[in-house]
């Protein structure tokens, strides 16, 4: 059965029907690196996206691991929990994080966001992230406001509902993970709050059939980020900051195909005395006047291209709801980087108790040859 003879339904049901699965696998293996994660109409406003291409797929698989990260410290997870229990190769389609402050009454720590925890991902010796990247710098926003979910707290000692900040990165291309291999996360608590943070990381994946031969070229996701210094939100003086060549960078020997930029502003509101912990660490959109008004941004590439020529308002560059600037297939040459220049304006009513930090992330993928550290033994 050739690929052309397979219907989408047959391909999608590859794992359920043995008669289809094997043929689908063989036929679709020639389809290169694209997959459902790449082709799904992530934004329903764009119904005319390029049609789906198929990859060998079987049953869905979900893997989860938890770590408690002390403030200003690193932590890892029990990596075995993130290994395919069937001993099969798999493809990871989406990575999700849920963050919850530990030891806070009711679990509703107002200062907790995706900027609190940074995550580093490695598949063996292959880096997926440029060091530790703030979790929310990898993920677009889904709605205005803090991206929290209430969790039933009936089982908690105080009986109060728990709030968890949740973020998801739908990978631009599925990540092939050979049998026995593990995509290992390590976490860094950036110290923005004093509470420990429980991090739950989840992989939405799909099994591949034993012995499946991956494509000759494998897609490896890539994420890098720039985190600015703290700006005083309502300042009597103008201020500025900029990224370095090691922040929004493609350090590889291959071209990175960009998925999107993610731009967020986290704001701190300090208490009246230094002993009072931050009372608010909000999502960007809860303080619109900074990102809409006072903060401006310019951006250029290391090749000299003016991506943002004029200093535009932050929210004019990054959509305030999705926090993203979608980059469908833009190529980022090897060893190149983007440079961001931030400037903040003057407020007529200065106040020192509110500060903000700018987070800009970059996601995409690159291609490597099978056997270059991955997939050779599959």
């Amino acid at each position, binding site marked *: 059965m050739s690929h052309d003879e397979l219907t989408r339904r047959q391909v999608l049901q590859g794992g359920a029907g043995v008669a289809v699965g094997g043929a689908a696998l063989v036929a679709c293996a020639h389809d290169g690196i694209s997959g459902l994660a790449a082709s799904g109409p992530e934004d329903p406003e764009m119904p*005319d996206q390029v049609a789906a291409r198929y990859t060998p797929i079987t049953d869905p698989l979900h893997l989860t691991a938890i770590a408690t990260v002390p403030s200003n410290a690193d932590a890892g997870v029990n990596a075995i929990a993130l290994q395919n229990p069937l001993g099969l190769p798999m493809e990871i389609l989406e990575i999700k994080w849920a963050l919850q402050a530990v030891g806070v009454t009711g679990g509703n720590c107002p200062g907790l966001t995706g900027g609190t925890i940074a995550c580093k991902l490695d598949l063996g010796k292959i880096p997926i992230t440029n060091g530790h990247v703030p979790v929310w710098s990898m993920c677009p926003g889904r709605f205005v406001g803090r991206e929290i979910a209430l969790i039933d707290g009936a089982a908690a000692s105080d009986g109060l509902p728990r709030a968890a900040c949740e973020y998801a990165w739908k990978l631009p291309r599925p990540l092939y993970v050979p049998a026995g291999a593990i995509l290992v996360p390590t976490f860094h608590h950036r110290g923005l709050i004093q509470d420990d943070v429980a991090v739950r990381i989840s992989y939405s994946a799909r099994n591949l059939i034993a012995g499946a031969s991956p494509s000759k070229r494998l897609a490896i996701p890539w994420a890098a980020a720039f985190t600015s210094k703290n700006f005083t939100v309502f300042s009597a003086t103008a201020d500025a900051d900029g990224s370095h060549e090691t922040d929004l960078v493609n350090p590889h020997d291959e071209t990175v195909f960009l998925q999107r930029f993610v731009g967020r502003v986290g704001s701190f509101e300090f208490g009246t005395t230094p002993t009072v912990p931050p009372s608010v660490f909000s999502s960007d959109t809860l303080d619109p006047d900074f990102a809409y008004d006072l903060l401006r941004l310019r951006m250029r590439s290391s090749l000299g291209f003016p991506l943002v020529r004029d200093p535009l308002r932050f929210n*004019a560059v990054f959509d305030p709801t999705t926090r993203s600037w979608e980059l469908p297939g833009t190529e980022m040459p090897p060893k190149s980087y983007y440079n961001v220049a931030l400037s903040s304006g003057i*407020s007529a009513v200065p*106040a020192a108790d509110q500060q903000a930090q700018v987070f800009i992330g970059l996601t995409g993928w690159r291609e490597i040859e099978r056997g270059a550290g991955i997939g050779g033994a599959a």
Partner: protein
Amino acid sequence: MNPAKFQFGGVPAVFGADVALTATNGTAIVDTGALASPFRAPYLLDEIRFLVRVNRFTQIAWYYYPLFGNGITAKLQMGRINITQDFVPIWLFGTHVQKLWIAGAGVIDAQHLYGYNEYRWKLPRPLFVPLGSAITVNLQATPFLTAAARVSVSFVARALPVGTKTPPKIDVPFVTAYIPDLQTSTNERTAQSSEKDLVNPFLVPLHVQRFIGRQSYNGGYPAGLVFEVGDDGTIAFVGTDIKLADSMGYNVTRDFTPFDSVFEPGRRAWTFLRQLNPKERYNAAFRITGTYRAKLNPQVSLVGFREEVMA
């Protein structure tokens, strides 16, 4: 033009400019130079954004702010090529993104309170803008805009390689709308679009992407209350029905149907793909009844794209 060819790639760029708009029938033209690509190359326009800031002088509740979406209209052109049919309210370009946001008290210039909102239009197809061409954006306020506004218009684009030839045909987005007269009567009423409203005015087919339907509530108690229906409204809005038919007489909605049943309340849109032949149109009829009939002002738009021959 092959859509797949231009869906991916290019050097990303965002460019735009601010413009001030006075209340009630003010007009402004966005700096065309600032809306020109920074590259000496053609580019693809993926998205147009309108960020609006409106200032008020006193601490008031959010629903006292003027409604931006139908308070500001825009007319977009690329040379001879129309992107909109006359002036279209900026909330009728794209689906709903967010509601109004209010900044803190006088934190930016001590005298004003600011309300913010954004309207984003992701084009149904990327628009190929040839080298040397510019898109002009004319803005005009309506009576709904009762305070001065600052509008930030930005283009999200991808520059193409230098020397990229202009295709013989390009896909050009298009928006046209039906805006009934501002209602002041307390009577139950109806309104009927004309053949010039939800129409394909071109000599080529119009590929329809969606209808967008929004309505505002204005006036009444408390005095000055103005907001978009669907934005935290505490009043149950039952009263606006819509009936749609095409120019061949076929019913699109068979009967007068509640507004929110036709346009999904979250996105304020009804997305579908349909080819509207040259000069074909849709007819929209509103029937506005119920307790709040004197305060409701529904609007509907048609969004799509057509092919234009590039000389």
